[in-house]
């Protein structure tokens, strides 16, 4: 996001405008962070899916399940339920992140309207 002034324009920047610009910048940052977090959450979800598929295919009774840094020998059923739990946690997390992202995108659109309204060409709020 850049603020580039066109030469010679005299629209004054009030403290309120500055705060709007600041808020837009903060939201933009949070949006990028959110995108990264969403990506990671989706990958975790996929890994858990793969893991539970592998589980179904395997015929061993004892599965080495990673707890912390070690692999504990755990009976298959317990591993299944653990993976189910983890999947629920990650999908809930993903939902929360997607919701937050939607709200931020909406707020940013609002701010864009206000700022473009006042400054028209004197301000650039697009991603470069």
């Amino acid at each position, binding site marked *: 996001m850049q*603020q580039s002034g066109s030469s010679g324009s005299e629209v004054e920047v009030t403290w309120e405008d500055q705060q709007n610009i600041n808020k837009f*910048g903060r939201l933009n*940052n949070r949006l990028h962070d959110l995108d990264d977090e969403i990506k990671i959450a989706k990958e975790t979800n996929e890994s858990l899916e793969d893991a539970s598929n592998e589980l179904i295919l395997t015929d061993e009774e004892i599965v080495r399940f990673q707890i912390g840094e070690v692999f504990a020998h755990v009976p298959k059923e317990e591993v299944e339920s653990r993976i189910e739990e983890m999947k629920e946690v990650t999908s809930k997390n993903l939902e929360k992140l997607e919701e937050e992202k939607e709200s931020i995108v909406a707020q940013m659109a609002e701010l864009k309207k206000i700022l473009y309204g006042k400054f028209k060409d004197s301000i650039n709020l697009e991603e470069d």
Partner: protein
Amino acid sequence: MSTSASATERRGIPAASFVEDVQTYLSQLNLDVNSALAFLQERLQQYRVVEMKLLAQQRDLQHLFLAMGNLTIIFLLIKQQAKIPDIEKCLDVVATLQAKKGTGEAIIADFEVSEGIYSRACVEDADSVCLWLGANVMLEYSCEEATVLLQKNLENAKASLEVLVADLQFLRDQVTITQVTIARVYNWDVHQRRLRQAVAATSES
């Protein structure tokens, strides 16, 4: 959101003062346009340096790679500056130990002795765990005490993360204000030049 029109600094980071009117600002600073622009640019640079530092610290706390420390079921190693996911993993291990304690079965686990080499351990009855506190110190705790200690560390780490995030937001705001001020000073200067040229043109004609 922040209402700090009056905050002059935060944790060592100077606040960028908002400029109501460029003319007044320049005369208050007692600088000509170019020096003012240079000063603002320098401020911007300083902000960027601090931002880099804070971002690195934040990444450390949020670090998600699974290869930190060496945990076995018998010895739990956590560094004092441990990352949040690592502390959560430790809590997980202690909780598992406590759960298994009731059943009386032994836990068999494979742990890494060295890269690519794993060994098997049999943990009979986990009454206590050892926590690595850093500085070559390891203490033995009962499962409950260990849980309490780890929880406390987790909360501290999360609190530090929050403070860091707030710092970064503050910093970002100051950077934005400074950028806008630079643009406005520059525009004002261009405007002044235009006016002077116009005056010169009319006085010649």
